[in-house]
């Protein structure tokens, strides 16, 4: 351990790292601290806020945004953006509503009432298909993600409105004699007292998190978001990765749409209007960089909870809806501001941390073993 690391090399980065960690803890945990602050403030202002029942209710509201945001996170990590998720959420509910009313085949004179699991699969497939269109447009035809998904936002919303000429499906309960009951399970039931929607959110978060951190695909996604050319030269299938993130984003939006329409037991063609912006906000509050390559599932979840708990809290203490909008906007701006501070700090650290490393020929302590050269002083 005491091989000859030059004093400067040995002590400086370690010292620097310690000083940096304290600042970084506050900065990196900002979404977490913001959430704590929100809970504390509203708990003081309203006795009903910090109760298990209310927290679970708020969490089930958050679940819809959170699932949407996790899909959005993948796209943003890739350096893209998906504006079509709100519309996809809407059409997913509409497809479910349409199928629950039964598919009437006039030619054969029969009506089919698909089981709920079929409805769920078809809705998810529709979401994934929309994502696939986005992905192909962006990856293969090189359309700018903003424009491609903006186009899909309108197309999909239009299709959702066309399905019923703008009307809402009100009856998603199904009928026992048709064997298609159970759609409300997603939105109403609880397992161990936890709403199913929240559990779905947890499952989605865990799956995506594992994929990001433990698989080659996750590595490729971060790499292609950070430096697409480098990833391509390294043999990463950049295009395939890009198509997949949009597909997963569409899939997440469809799942969110199912949960929302199940909670409301109705599916409206305008559901999820402007939700894409909330999802982007959650991802940004969670510390992800819109330029790609930086962001985590944990941060995004925190971001979704910050937005959800803030807006629900404002409702509980009776603040006007217009002020809610102002507060939400202020939180987003603040988050982006802090992101900028964090990334600038990192660059500065890179510049000064790398600078004093003078190469000296004697010995090679740094590469001697898997222990960084902290010990020598």
């Amino acid at each position, binding site marked *: 351990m005491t091989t000859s690391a030059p004093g400067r090399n040995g002590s400086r980065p370690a010292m620097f790292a310690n000083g940096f960690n304290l600042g970084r803890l506050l900065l990196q945990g900002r979404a977490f601290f913001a959430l704590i602050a929100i809970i504390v403030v509203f708990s003081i202002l309203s006795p009903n806020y910090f109760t298990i029942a209310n927290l679970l209710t708020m969490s089930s509201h958050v679940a819809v945004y959170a699932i949407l945001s996790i899909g959005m996170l993948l796209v943003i990590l890739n350096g893209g953006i998906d504006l079509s998720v709100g519309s996809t959420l809407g059409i997913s509910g509409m497809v479910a509503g349409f199928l629950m009313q039964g598919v009437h085949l006039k030619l054969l004179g029969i009506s089919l009432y698909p089981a709920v699991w079929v409805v769920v699969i078809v809705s998810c497939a529709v979401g994934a298909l929309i994502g696939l269109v986005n992905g192909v447009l962006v990856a293969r035809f090189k359309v700018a993600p903003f424009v491609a998904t903006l186009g899909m936002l309108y197309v999909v919303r239009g299709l959702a409105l066309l399905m019923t000429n703008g009307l809402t499906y009100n009856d998603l309960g199904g009928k026992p004699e048709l064997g298609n009951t159970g759609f409300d399970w997603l939105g109403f039931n609880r397992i161990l007292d936890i709403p199913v929607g929240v559990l779905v959110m947890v499952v989605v978060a865990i799956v995506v998190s594992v994929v990001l951190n433990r698989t080659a695909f996750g590595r490729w996604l971060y790499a292609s978001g*950070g*430096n697409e050319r480098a990833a391509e030269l390294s043999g990463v299938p950049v295009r395939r990765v890009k198509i997949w993130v949009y597909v997963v984003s569409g899939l997440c939006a469809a799942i969110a749409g199912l949960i929302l329409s199940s909670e409301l037991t109705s599916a409206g063609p305008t559901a999820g209007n402007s939700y894409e912006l909330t999802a982007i906000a959650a991802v940004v509050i969670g510390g992800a960089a819109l330029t790609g*390559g930086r962001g985590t599932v944990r941060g995004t979840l925190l971001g979704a909870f910050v937005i959800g708990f803030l807006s629900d809290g404002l409702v509980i203490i009776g603040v006007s809806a217009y002020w809610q909008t102002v507060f939400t906007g202020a939180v987003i701006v603040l988050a982006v501001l802090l992101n900028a501070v964090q990334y600038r700090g990192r660059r500065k650290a*890179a510049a000064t941390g790398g600078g004093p*490393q*003078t*190469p000296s*020929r004697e010995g*090679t302590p740094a590469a001697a073993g898997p222990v960084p050269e902290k010990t020598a002083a």
Partner: protein
Amino acid sequence: MTSTQGLAERPVRPSEPVMSLRGITKRFGAVQALSGVDFDINAGEVVALVGDNGAGKSTFVKILSGVYTPDEGTITYDGERVTIPSPAAAQELGISSVFQDLALADNLDVVANLFLGREIGRFALDEEEMERRSWELLGQLSARIPSVRIPIASLSGGQRQTVAIARSLIGDPKVVILDEPTAALGVAQTAEVLNLVERLRERGLGVVLISHNLADVQAVADRVAVLRLGRNNGTFRMKDVTYEQIIAAITGATDNAVTRRASSRGAKEQSDGK
């Protein structure tokens, strides 16, 4: 597994070139970028490729690394005639390139960059194994990297170049092409990279060094091949040649073998006379 240790154990056969190109010609429309270029790469040897701007260096390097295919000419690799249709094909053969702009992902750590595109364990990354091999590889190169778990963005230019070069060795290549590895580096960092180049030679790799900096070339190259206006303009053993002769070959002051020979003799006699 193609472990990095295999590199050091490979027998070195200096007699037979590991890669040999003959009569390489490349046109871009009306522009004749290369005409009839011959080039040999030997195992355990650093060969520098020098030339003025527009001499065809980068075109030639792109042919070596599979970005372009030659219009005419043959490529022999490891005793067999081959074609290199794509960069991936070049990598598969064992020709690995370190590009001028490094091609590292700044947001990933050293391990992730070293193994990018060649991860161990596709659906369950084996981080421990990758980290162990990273240290092993960097240790063999005597590379000075403080930690393999810090993002590339926080490394210095020389360290980044070191990682880029180490990365090129992951696929267990026989030929490594370094395109301007010392451009944009400070003096000390340049020295570090040049040490690294020597270590690649010690491992029995054929190293192609493209550089504008003749001081670097003189410091590490065994042989220097000069390109001028898309043609061979002399290949010199480094120990037989002076700085002025290389410059003359680059600029075209000597245009044929006879004058080159004469001037080389003259230079020798002069220095002997002193």
